[in-house]
Each structure stands twice: as structure tokens, then as C-alpha cells.
């Protein structure tokens, strides 16, 4: 036994024992423990195996920077890999298992990698597994992945819920330590809306492991009083268990709150994690500082840990990390930690200070019987699964030091990450020997240890003063709270030059514990030309693990600087990016998963379509009916065939509400539309609709639709479903940026109208049963656009527009009336055998008629390419796309042009996307002649048909081409024909009145 629970002290509840398991062994801890502190109390020093060499590792920190103690918690669907034992709050029934070891944590066969480590130097993978290239995917990568790794996630569905919230505040204080608490108190008392967030489950930060008294009271009691006052203030929001992980534009901060990660079975009513987006007028970085590890031989042996962690385990958790603790330091902070350990009742046997001639800071009460060795270097550690001693060198002499735990203290690194996430770099301070946060403006400032303020009383003052200044800026009068007196506080001593590497290492001196990068790897990177801090990072993988180099980043920079003979200032530090610590996908997704992953839009006729048996398909955000399955129909094709045939022979009803609808008003509306479309719009009469084609400024087709003139200065245009938003923005650009002098206003009315297409020879008869006004051939001729009164009294808009080539109407009614009107039409159509038809049938009908959609209008086609060249107005002075349409490349005769294809063997089918080749040509994209844009089996013709873009296609009618689909390995011989397969004379669109 070496680590053990102290009989008193700490912020744990010894009256509330909690049972948990580690690798199936039953252990117990107390309420207030973390998994790491509870394991230590059970003398479970060994907590994991390292990533590459499978070296035994123990807990190294007491916080979120932990690189070693990664475990998998929970089981089944709640299994969570790579949990830092230092951040897992202990609860009854917690199960944890170790990772990256086989067959067990104590006996890990993967440790053979350690013996072969001369092979596994930095860049090993790049150098070794290069050849043959096919081996990488099939052999090297799978084997490497199995050997080196972290925990495994579960592939089962996450049973828990997550949520996202927005929050607004005057001041966000990040970190609830002494600095943050004083800042929150100052701002909170002045009435500011304050959010105080801290990643720990208990607020208080370093107060919780402070062994000095404040105004004669324990620091934790002082902190508790502050928290009680803060929680009573209605304008202060306290967020424990909340990590602020990112800083974004407009002073928006991302934070994740672990609402129920510390319970065995979460309550259904609450999310397990909550993602906060906090919009803060001002924010204060009060994240404190991370203690800097010392790099020496064997510094990764279990039992070696940060001095601050050893103090935290003793003071906060009542756990002694050993019975004979050695402190290794390169600064005064190690002496203070030794004293703090002694105050908690932990035996410190030896203190080794790398600085020659170092003596105890004045006034510090040192542990009784502690041996002091100044100017000594640790060259190795003894022991295997736990440290049993140190080998030191002092003035040329070697000595073995007996110990069962090592607390290391290499100075402090302010936690500057958040302030650097938007591009600014931290700056090296020579006097403080630390990287300090950059000046990123008044909205986000650092205070306390995060700003390089070291002593407790200075931090308290700094937090209060900075909050005071911020309150003042925001127009609130605040006053400085009374600051406590810290008993026996040591003066702020100037740190000595940091020891980046203790010389003479006998075994690997680790820099990055999680990714197994040692000092030699960085030296190798430098020798091989990867000495830039960003190159060295990639070459060695230093700071690339899940801890993102919280402990290793600054040391790597310092080592590179020392090797180059430069100041760390010149070497800099690698870029800090969100997230500060790992955030679960669940929290980022929030409620947005499965069908809620994206917003979806339903047409006003959605419910009606559902009741008709619609099978829906996603079209952008819309869910549109693909087809309407009827009992006995086997698969979608049978339904589509029936729908198409019914439309051609009788009548069908289709929901077209999703088309974009934009209404325009104003004296210049006609002129505006005339400039927007490539075909003429000025002379469109009131009560008429016209097909229109919009181009982009580069001459390619942008979108198509109809333009209806409802009144002298009143138009309604439609867009395709997919392009509605883009067309709206395009029009706004034209109206506001290009021609702001035109007097026109427009608004989207897509959601306001339910619109249905009634098509087929019986369409007029069915419609007349529902519409009161005369809709005969004379009253409503082709391309009529007028207001009609329905028999129900509802007023609608009727358009004589046909996409199917049949006699067809589009009837629009206010959205709320849509379902009733659709049902009335279906009832009126029943004697005629009406069917509802969906997107698939609509597509077949339009392919049969050679009408284009965005399959053809793919952003690379001109009006002429798709056979609409006559629409390009030659008379208009200007319209969007006019000038660029005249370019040679857009008028060349060998452009791909729209044609139809019919398979020579009528039993064959074709697929969209297939390439066209000359008959007899070798299947190769070098011989490409064009491609199939749309294909279907035509129920009307009884065989497959396709639309295609073929080089000079219109000159090649009658020619045979090969339709080559490499993906499906198909070749079909097809004849080039006109793209209009059905009713080329348009004889069906306006039949005689039958009624």
C-alpha cells in the first residue's frame, strides 16, 4: 500500500460511501470523489496503458488536462469511451474499465511495442508503411489501428436526450476559482446579468484545494460563503459541470453542461447534456493556470504526477498519494506544494530542486524531516507498474532516492486557449516564463492566473477589479468587495528559467503522455527538418491527442526553442482551436437527430396526401409524395404506371404547393420581370400566364417557371421547388443592388397557397364540379390566369398550365382551404376514376413530353442547349445573362443539346447519368459524347425512354449511340430521337369542350 485515504480532511462525505467497479473489481469511495480520487484511495495507481508503447500509466492530474487516466465508463448503450477519470464524478454503481490493453491492464502484450521502440520513432508510420500502397488500406492501417488506440464506442443507439439553449448575459465568467468568484460577486452585486461557468462539479476552483486560511477560515468555507451569496442573487446564473469550450464571432461562447452524466440512470425529463450558446456583452477568462510537467527520464511511471494534483488529492479528496512522497521541482511552487502536502498530513520525504543553490522560500514552514536536494537532476525512475524510487544526479554523483510517489512542479501555464481560438496568438513573457493570453479587445479579457497573476490575494483583487471596470463600461456602478487576508501568504517570487529537459535521461523523457512523444522524438523532428512548432507537432503527433496538448504544448515549444537556441517567443505555440475539451456528438446534435436532423417542410396538402396513401420523398427540406400506393400494388413502379396511365386516359390530382410563389407589385414590376427573364415579359396581358426562363449573369439557365399577370401592376411568378430560396435572393439582389431605382416590391407567398394540378382529359369536367365560375374552353383558354370562385365560396386562382401535356389546370386556394378543396376534387373525380399522383408520375409525364427540369437545367446548360433558344429575346436591350449569352463558347455548334433516346431493343432500360458513346467506340470517358439526364419507362409507349444532352444532338436524330453506364456495367444501344415522345403536336392540351 502506498496511496491511501487520510482519516480526516477534504471535501468528501465520509458518511456517504459509494460502491463502484474498476475492471470488475469492487471498490468504494465517498460522495464528493472523482473516479480518479476514489481509485487512488484504493491504491489503484495503474489506470491505463499508453497509446503507442502500451506503457503502464497512472493518473497525472486532478483535472480536465488528464492525459493518462482514460477509462470507459458505463455499459451497453451508455458505454462511454475515453472518459477522464479525473472528471468523472463518482456515483453509486459506477462501472469503469481500462482501455488499450490485452489481455489485462497489468499484463498487456502490446507493451512489446515498448521494447521495439527504436523502430517506432517519430515519423515511423510515414517512413515505413509507404509501400506497396495497396497494403495501407488492407493491412497496415487495420493492424495499426488495433494495436494503438483508445476506447471503443458503442454502435448502439444512444438512449439519452440532449438539448440546446441560447442565453444572453452582460458578463460571462469562465472559471469559478478565486478570480472568477470575486469577479462574479462584484458584477453580480452591481446588478449585471452574470453567468459563472466551471467545468468542475463543485464550484470553487483552486479554493477547493487551498490549504492556506483566508481571514482565519478555511478557503473552502470562504468559497462556500461566496457561492451562497451568488446563488441568492437572481441576476447570477451558476453553471457547475459546464465547460466553456469555444469562443466564436460576436462574443458568442459555446458551453456544454453535463446535466446528468453523474447519475447511474438519468431521468427522462432532463437531458443528459445541454449545449449552451451564450451571447455575452463581456466575458472574463478566469480559467487559472495549468501546472507544467517536468521532462525527465521515466517521468511517466505510475505514481509520478503533478504537484498540484497531489495537493488536490490530499486537500480536496482526503487522499495521500503516497507514504514517502518526493517532490521534484524547478520553481518555488514545488516548495509550496510540499508544505501544503505536509499541512494535509502527507509525508514528504525528499524535495529535489533542479536549480543549483535553491533554498526554501522565506517564511515557509517546511515538512518535518524533508531532505532538500538543490541542483539535482532526475535521470530515471525505478519500479514497473508503480514508481519505487528515483535516480538522481547531483554534481556528478548518482544517487537513488526511495519514494512511492513523485510530485512534479515545473511552473505554470496560464490556460489561454479560449482567448486564442479566433486567430490571436499568446505572447511569451520573459519575466513570468509563460505564454500569456493575447489582447483580443475589451469584450473578452483575462484575469487572475489565466493572465499570469500568481498569488491568491492578487487573483482575488484582479478578479474584482476587472469586473469593476467591465461593469463601469456597461454603465453600472459597482464597488470593490472586501478582500480577505490570506494567512502566511508567500510573496510572488520570480520564477527561474524553466527546465525544459532534465539532462542525462536514462530512459524516455515524455513530453506528450497521451501520444507517447518523448524529448528524443522532438529532437528527431528538428534534425529531419520539421523543427517549426506546427511541423514538429504533425511529425511527432505531439499535442494531437484528445487532451490537445494541455500539458505538452508549452513544453514542446520550450524544448524546440532550447534546441534551436531561441526564446520560446520566437518559436511560438501551435494553434488553439475549439473544442477546449472533447464534446459529445450528442450534445452538438441536441434534439436534431433522426427525422429531426434537419427542419422539414410540409405542404398544406401533406395530411391529405397521407390519407391518400402517399409515400413521401425528401426534396430539399420538403417531404413530397413520391407515389400513392394502393392495395395490391407491388412496388413503386406499379403505382407510378397506374398514375401515369390514369392521367393520360382520365384525370389525376397532384400537389404542386411546394413550387416557389412570389407576388410582385409596382409600376416597374413589368420592367423588372423583363430584365429578370430572358424572354419578353412587357407585353404579357392581364389574365395570362407565360413560361419564363431566368439566366444567371454568365448566360447559363438559372431557373424556370411561370409568370402570371394578375393585374396591371400585379404579377405572380412561380419557381421550381428546389430553387425557390435562391430565386428570391437573386431577385432581391437585382432589386436592391442592380436596379434600386425600379419601383417594385415583392414577397414570397409560397406558404400562403395550396396549389394542385388537375390533369387529364376529364380535368375540366371534374374541376367544373368544384368551381362555380364557367371554366369552359372560351372562358379559361390555355395560359389563362384568373381568379375563380369555388362552389364552397372560397376564392382561388386558376391557371391553365400543363406540365404533363394533357388538358390541365393549376388551382391555388388559401393554404387552410387546401385539404378540403383537394378532397372535393377527389370526390368529384371519383366517377371518372381520378387518382392522386406523385413526384414520380409527374416526372414520367414530363419526360414523355420532353419538358426540362433541373436534371437538364444543371447550371451548365444554355436555353439553346435544352431546345429553348428561341426564348432568348433578341429585342430586349438588357436582361440578366444577355451579354454573356453572346459568347462564342455558349453558341458553338458542338455544344451538347437535348435529344430523346429510345433503346433499339425495346426491352432494355437506361439510367440517368449514363454516358453516350458513338456506336463501336471504346467505352471510355475520352470518347464521351454526352450523358443521359432523365430516364424512365414510359407506360404510355410501353418501353424505356430517356432525355439526354448529346454533342450537336439536334443534327443527329436517327443516329445510334451506346448508352454506357460504367457503374452498373451496362451498355445499351439507343436511337437518337426528338425529345418529345408523346403528342408532339400538342393536340391533347386543349381539346373541344365535352360538356
Amino acid at each position, binding site marked *: 500500500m502506498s496511496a491511501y485515504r487520510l482519516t480526516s480532511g477534504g471535501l468528501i462525505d465520509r458518511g456517504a460511501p459509494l460502491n463502484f467497479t474498476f475492471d470488475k473489481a469492487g471498490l468504494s469511495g465517498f460522495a464528493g470523489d472523482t473516479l480518479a480520487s476514489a481509485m487512488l484511495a484504493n491504491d489503484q495507481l495503474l489506470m491505463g496503458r499508453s497509446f503507442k508503447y502500451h506503457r503502464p500509466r497512472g493518473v497525472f492530474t486532478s483535472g480536465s488536462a488528464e492525459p493518462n487516466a482514460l477509462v470507459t465508463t458505463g455499459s451497453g448503450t451508455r458505454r462511454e469511451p475515453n472518459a477522464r477519470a479525473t472528471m468523472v464524478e463518482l456515483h453509486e454503481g459506477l462501472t469503469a474499465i481500462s482501455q488499450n490493453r490485452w489481455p489485462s491492464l497489468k499484463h498487456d502484450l502490446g507493451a512489446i511495442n515498448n521494447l521495439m521502440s527504436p523502430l517506432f520513432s517519430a515519423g515511423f508510420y510515414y517512413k515505413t508503411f509507404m509501400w506497396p500502397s495497396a497494403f495501407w488500406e488492407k493491412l497496415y492501417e487495420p493492424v495499426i489501428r488495433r494495436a494503438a488506440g483508445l476506447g471503443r464506442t458503442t454502435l448502439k443507439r444512444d438512449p439519452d436526450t440532449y438539448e440546446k439553449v441560447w442565453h444572453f448575459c452582460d458578463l460571462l465568467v469562465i472559471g469559478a476559482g478565486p478570480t472568477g468568484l470575486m469577479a462574479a460577486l462584484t458584477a453580480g452585486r452591481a446588478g449585471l446579468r452574470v453567468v459563472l461557468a466551471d467545468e468542475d462539479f463543485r464550484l470553487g476552483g483552486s479554493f477547493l484545494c487551498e490549504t492556506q486560511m483566508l481571514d482565519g477560515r478555511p478557503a473552502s468555507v470562504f468559497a462556500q460563503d461566496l457561492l451562497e451569496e451568488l446563488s441568492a442573487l437572481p441576476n447570477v446564473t451558476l453553471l457547475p459541470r459546464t465547460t466553456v469550450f469555444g469562443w466564436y464571432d460576436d462574443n458568442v461562447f459555446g458551453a456544454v453542461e453535463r446535466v446528468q452524466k453523474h447519475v447511474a440512470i438519468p431521468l427522462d425529463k432532463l437531458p443528459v447534456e445541454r449545449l449552451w450558446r451564450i451571447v455575452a456583452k463581456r466575458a472574463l477568462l478566469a480559467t487559472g493556470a495549468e501546472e507544467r510537467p517536468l521532462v525527465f527520464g521515466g517521468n511517466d511511471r505510475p505514481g509520478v504526477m503533478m504537484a498540484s494534483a497531489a495537493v488536490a488529492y490530499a486537500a480536496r479528496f482526503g487522499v495521500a498519494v503516497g507514504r514517502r512522497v518526493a517532490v521534484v521541482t524547478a520553481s518555488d511552487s514545488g516548495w509550496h506544494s510540499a508544505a501544503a502536502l505536509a499541512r494535509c498530513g502527507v509525508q514528504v520525504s525528499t524535495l529535489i530542486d533542479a536549480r543549483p543553490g535553491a533554498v526554501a522560500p522565506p517564511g515557509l514552514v517546511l515538512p518535518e524531516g524533508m531532505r532538500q536536494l538543490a541542483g539535482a537532476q532526475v535521470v530515471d525512475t525505478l519500479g514497473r507498474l508503480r514508481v519505487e524510487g528515483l535516480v538522481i544526479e547531483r554534481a556528478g554523483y548518482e544517487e537513488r532516492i526511495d519514494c512511492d510517489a513523485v510530485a512534479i512542479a515545473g511552473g505554470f501555464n496560464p490556460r489561454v486557449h479560449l482567448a486564442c481560438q479566433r*486567430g490571436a496568438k499568446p505572447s511569451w513573457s520573459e519575466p513570468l516564463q509563460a505564454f500569456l493570453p493575447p489582447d483580443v479587445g475589451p469584450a473578452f479579457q483575462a484575469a487572475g492566473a489565466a493572465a499570469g497573476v500568481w498569488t491568491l490575494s492578487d487573483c482575488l483583487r484582479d478578479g474584482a477589479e476587472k469586473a469593476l471596470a467591465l461593469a463601469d463600461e456597461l454603465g453600472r456602478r459597482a464597488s470593490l468587495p472586501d478582500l480577505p487576508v490570506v494567512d502566511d501568504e508567500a510573496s510572488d517570487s520570480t520564477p527561474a528559467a524553466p527546465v525544459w529537459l532534465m539532462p542525462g535521461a536514462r530512459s524516455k523523457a515524455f513530453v506528450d503522455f497521451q501520444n507517447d512523444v518523448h524529448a528524443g522524438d522532438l529532437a528527431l523532428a528538428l534534425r529531419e527538418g520539421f523543427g517549426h512548432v506546427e511541423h514538429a507537432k504533425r511529425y511527432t503527433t505531439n499535442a494531437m491527442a484528445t487532451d490537445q496538448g494541455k500539458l505538452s504544448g508549452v513544453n514542446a515549444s520550450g524544448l524546440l526553442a532550447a534546441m534551436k537556441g531561441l526564446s520560446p517567443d520566437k518559436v511560438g505555440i501551435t494553434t488553439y482551436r475549439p473544442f477546449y475539451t472533447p464534446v459529445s456528438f450528442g450534445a452538438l446534435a441536441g434534439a436534431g437527430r433522426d427525422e429531426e436532423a434537419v427542419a422539414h417542410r410540409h405542404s398544406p396538402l401533406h395530411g391529405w396526401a397521407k390519407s391518400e396513401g402517399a409515400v413521401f420523398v425528401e426534396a430539399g427540406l420538403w417531404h413530397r409524395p413520391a407515389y400513392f400506393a394502393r392495395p395490391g400494388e407491388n412496388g413503386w413502379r406499379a403505382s407510378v404506371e397506374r398514375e401515369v396511365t390514369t392521367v393520360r386516359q382520365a384525370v389525376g390530382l397532384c400537389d404542386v404547393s411546394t413550387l416557389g410563389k412570389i407576388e410582385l407589385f409596382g409600376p416597374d414590376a413589368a420592367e423588372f420581370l423583363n430584365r429578370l427573364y430572358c424572354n419578353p415579359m412587357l407585353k404579357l396581358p392581364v389574365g395570362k400566364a407565360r413560361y419564363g426562363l431566368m439566366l444567371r*449573369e454568365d448566360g447559363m439557365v438559372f431557373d424556370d417557371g411561370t409568370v402570371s399577370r394578375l393585374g396591371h401592376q400585379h404579377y405572380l411568378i412561380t419557381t421550381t421547388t428546389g430553387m425557390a430560396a435562391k430565386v428570391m*435572393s437573386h431577385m432581391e439582389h437585382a432589386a436592391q443592388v442592380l436596379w*434600386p431605382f425600379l419601383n417594385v416590391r415583392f414577397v414570397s407567398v409560397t406558404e400562403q397557397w395550396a396549389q394542385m394540378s388537375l390533369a387529364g382529359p376529364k380535368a375540366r369536367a371534374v374541376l367544373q364540379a368544384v368551381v362555380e365560375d364557367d371554366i369552359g374552353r372560351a372562358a379559361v383558354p390555355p395560359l389563362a390566369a384568373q381568379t375563380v370562385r369555388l362552389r364552397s365560396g372560397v376564392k382561388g386562382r386558376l391557371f391553365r398550365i400543363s406540365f404533363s401535356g394533357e388538358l390541365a389546370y393549376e388551382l391555388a386556394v388559401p393554404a387552410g382551404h387546401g385539404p378540403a378543396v383537394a378532397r372535393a376534387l377527389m370526390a368529384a373525380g371519383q366517377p371518372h376514376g381520378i387518382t392522386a399522383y406523385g413526384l414520380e408520375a409527374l416526372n414520367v409525364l414530363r419526360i414523355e413530353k420532353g419538358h426540362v427540369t433541373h436534371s437538364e437545367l444543371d447550371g451548365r446548360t444554355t436555353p439553346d442547349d435544352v431546345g429553348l433558344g428561341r426564348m432568348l429575346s433578341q429585342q430586349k436591350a438588357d436582361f440578366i445573362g444577355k*451579354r454573356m449569352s453572346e459568347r462564342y463558347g455558349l453558341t458553338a455548334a458542338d455544344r451538347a443539346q437535348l435529344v430523346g433516346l429510345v433503346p433499339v431493343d425495346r426491352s432494355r432500360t437506361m439510367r440517368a447519368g449514363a454516358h453516350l458513346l458513338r456506336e463501336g467506340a471504346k467505352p471510355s470517358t475520352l470518347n464521351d459524347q454526352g450523358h443521359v439526364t432523365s430516364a424512365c419507362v414510359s407506360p404510355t409507349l410501353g418501353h424505356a425512354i430517356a432525355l439526354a444532352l448529346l454533342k450537336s444532338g439536334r443534327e443527329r436524330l436517327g443516329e445510334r449511340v451506346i448508352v454506357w453506364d460504367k457503374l452498373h456495367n451496362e451498355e445499351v444501344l439507343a436511337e437518337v430521337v426528338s425529345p418529345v415522345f408523346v403528342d408532339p403536336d400538342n393536340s391533347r392540351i386543349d381539346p373541344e369542350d365535352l360538356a
Partner: protein
Amino acid sequence: MTGDATRLRPASDASDEAWHAYVYLRANPKGVHLEHWQHVGGCRRFLVVERNTATHDVLSVADAAELARGGAA
């Protein structure tokens, strides 16, 4: 964001070069730049935003239509 706000649409009979420049060429300066931004989730106005592309500091904002009409912006 729709990019460079300094370009003006040429007359329909302007030279090929002028049209080529308008349709295809964009300055991508590091530093202060005038850009068109559209307030898509709100008023739908196109704005001319003077922004430092290196620091993301927004220096001024004007309504594009008002600016084009020569109004106070």
C-alpha cells in the same frame, strides 16, 4: 455573403473585358474590403459591409440600395 461589393454591372454593350471582369474576377484582399452581405434570416436587405478580412472587424455597414441611390447611409 455574396462577395465583392465594389463591382458595378456594366452596360449591356460594354466590352468583353468589362463583362469578364464583372462576372468572373474577384478581389480577395487581406485587409479592409467592401462586401455584400444579405440579412437572410431577417429584413432580407443587401448590405455593403466594410470589413477587415484578416481580423473580421466590421468597420461600417450601409444599405446597398440606399448607397446606390446616393442616399444617406
